[in-house]
């Protein structure tokens, strides 16, 4: 009898040794003359358990993890192929692992379950149901798909949280500059925020859902060309997406006549080249056009004058990959999840110094404290948590008093923080808040596109002012000087907030100010001595 095994082909799983485990499994089972069918699935997102090996049994899929090459022999000897419970790595039925069972998986409902290369597997798990419904809706009324997205309450998951339906309506209503021109759907897959990996996980685990979402977007607004702008740091996602796109063409889901509907949509992956700023939508469009990724002034909005000057939807991977379930189950179903004006779910990403890191998809409205308690299991190092940065490098550092804040867009703005793309980076008590504030400015100096002065020069000055504050504190300078430098930094932050062209410059002060406000006792004083000395030496040269 042939046993079906699943082992992820996801970047993180491979980074933890999945490819080697796969080789060992094939080698050892051949040697033992055991018949297996090894499927390289996407990850379930339980990264602390990767490589996670699953075995198909009569009761369902049974999991073992994290598996190393050294475990393979003992696993096979102890009846892993029968789903034996005696091995120390045995985790029980995958679906019953509390980390997974406690989630509300909508966008990621297929992640880790299906074979990302198999369109048949996708179809067998409700794939393309949303597209069929969209084609039917379109026959009734040209505005009907956009209406459905509006009703769902979906907002941009890239971080800006702009209502997706309104963006789509703008593109639907906009005209191309001439009849020969076309509208575009651009997927922003330039997931550069540290602490985030939901886009990557989705593209590697369920690429067809993104493809389906983009086709629906194309039908909704009359766009005929799509591009996935993917960061070059994600070669595995590129490999999987390109295979999936080729398969979608083969099965007439892409091309001239989608499923006999007479509708056309073409799709291509385009690679970025290591520029964080290209995650900003106008910079991304410049890059797609073959230029330096310099931010454009808005207006005009990309929805009206976007790629090659034509009406363009620019949406994040998660926004687009959520579209199929909205069309499949109806806007009301999706809208039912969430709280206030934050409807649906957000895939939170638990990262950094955390024992149980991974993807946690939940409806809006839970709290950081709940996520940490229900999923995190404390820090990886075992030390107490000191600070949590939410929303990427441009997000605030939150101190313990803020962890009860409800996780929704409005509640976070109210405490001068951002939910962004849902990244949660945990730091233990060894963190230097001064270093983190300095790094926020340094990162902006490295990644600024250079178009506007507050961002380009402000970030460099920010690093310098913080360095001067460190030097002043070491030299026991007068209190007056420290106060003056503090005021200078606040003033600089305000200039960047008010004067920058895009979010890069205007949000870099968010982490800095959050540290100045909520970690005031640590700021400057907690600079490690060795680093402080380096700063002093550099200044003296």
């Amino acid at each position: 009898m042939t046993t079906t095994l699943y082992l992820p082909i996801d970047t993180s799983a491979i980074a933890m040794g999945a490819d080697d485990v796969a080789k060992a499994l094939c080698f050892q089972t051949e040697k033992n003359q055991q018949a297996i069918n090894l499927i390289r699935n996407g990850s379930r997102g339980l990264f602390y358990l990767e490589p996670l090996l699953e075995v198909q049994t009569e009761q369902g899929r049974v999991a073992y993890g994290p598996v190393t090459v050294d475990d393979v022999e003992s696993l096979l000897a102890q009846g892993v192929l029968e789903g034996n419970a005696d091995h120390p790595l045995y985790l029980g039925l995958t679906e019953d692992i509390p980390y997974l069972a406690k989630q509300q998986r909508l966008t990621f409902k297929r992640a880790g379950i299906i074979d990302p290369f198999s369109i048949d597997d996708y179809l067998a798990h409700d794939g393309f149901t949303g597209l069929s419904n969209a084609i039917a809706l379109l026959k009734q009324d040209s505005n009907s798909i956009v209406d459905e997205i509006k009703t769902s309450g979906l907002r941009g998951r890239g971080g800006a949280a702009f209502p997706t339906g309104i963006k789509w309506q703008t593109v639907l209503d906009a005209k191309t500059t001439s009849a020969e021109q076309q509208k575009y759907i651009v997927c922003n897959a330039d997931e550069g925020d540290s602490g985030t990996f939901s886009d990557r996980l989705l593209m590697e685990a369920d690429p067809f859902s993104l493809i389906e979402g983009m086709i629906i977007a194309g039908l909704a607004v009359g766009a005929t060309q799509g591009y996935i702008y993917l960061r070059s740091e994600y070669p595995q996602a590129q490999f999987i997406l390109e295979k999936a796109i080729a398969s979608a063409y083969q099965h007439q889901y892409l091309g001239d006549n989608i499923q006999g509907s007479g509708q056309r949509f073409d799709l291509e992956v385009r690679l970025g080249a290591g520029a964080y700023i290209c995650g900003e939508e106008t910079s991304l469009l410049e890059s797609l056009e073959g230029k330096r990724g310099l931010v454009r002034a808005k207006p005009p909005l990309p929805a009206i004058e976007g790629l090659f000057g034509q009406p363009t939807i620019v949406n994040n991977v998660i926004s687009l990959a959520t579209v199929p379930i909205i069309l499949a189950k109806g806007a009301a179903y999706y809208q039912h999840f969430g709280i206030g004006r934050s409807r649906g779910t957000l895939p939170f990403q638990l990262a950094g110094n955390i024992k149980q890191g991974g993807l946690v998809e939940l409806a809006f409205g839970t709290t950081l404290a709940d996520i940490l308690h229900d999923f995190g299991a404390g820090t990886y190092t075992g030390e107490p948590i000191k600070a949590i940065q939410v929303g990427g490098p441009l997000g605030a550092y939150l101190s313990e008093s803020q962890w009860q804040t409800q996780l929704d867009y409005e509640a976070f703005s109210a405490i001068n923080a951002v939910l962004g793309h849902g990244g949660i980076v945990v730091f233990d008590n060894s963190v230097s808040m001064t270093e983190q504030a300095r790094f926020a400015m340094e990162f902006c100096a490295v990644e600024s596109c250079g178009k506007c002065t507050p961002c380009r020069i402000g970030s460099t000055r920010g690093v310098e002012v913080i360095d001067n504050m460190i030097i002043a504190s070491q030299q026991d300078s007068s209190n007056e000087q420290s106060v003056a430098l503090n005021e200078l930094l606040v003033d600089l932050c305000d200039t960047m907030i008010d004067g920058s062209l895009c979010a890069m410059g205007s949000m870099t002060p968010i982490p800095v100010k959050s540290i100045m406000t909520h970690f005031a006792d640590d700021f400057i004083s907690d600079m490690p001595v060795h680093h402080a000395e380096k700063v002093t030496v550099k200044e003296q040269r």
Partner: protein
Amino acid sequence: MNANGKEQSTEKTITLFVDNKKKLPGALLPILHDIQQHFGYIPQPAIVIIAQGLQQTEAEIYGVISFYAHFHLEQPGRHIIEVCRGEACQAMGSTALEQAIKSQLGVDFGQTTADKNYTLEPVYCLGNCACSPSIKVGRKTYGRMSSSKFAKLIKTLSLYQLNLGEER
């Protein structure tokens, strides 16, 4: 092949890549990726050839290449090692790891070892943030990296394996 012949074949290859994709809308990045994928960097003659093919100035082409951290104008080492400097990696001690890697290789960011084996680059997030700290070698990302694991890893990245086609 003599030096002149080699130059000619480089130019021919580049011309082929340019001709292949120059009709694409926004062709420049795809062309640059193809060239770098083939040569490991963007050889100098490429700038003129691309400029002619796309009817742009050499300055424009150079401007684009220099904007993006991913593109190299000089031949890097046989392995490009990228060390993540993102916050999720910092939370797991990447600053110390970065120092350890620099001292093991004896180079700073942006430099290549004397034996031309390794080029060290910073990278800002590899999307492996639940298993940090991370580094990337060629196309492969490694999680939970430490200075001792790194020492073992570079032993396996020998020229011998490169010749077997195991890497890149």
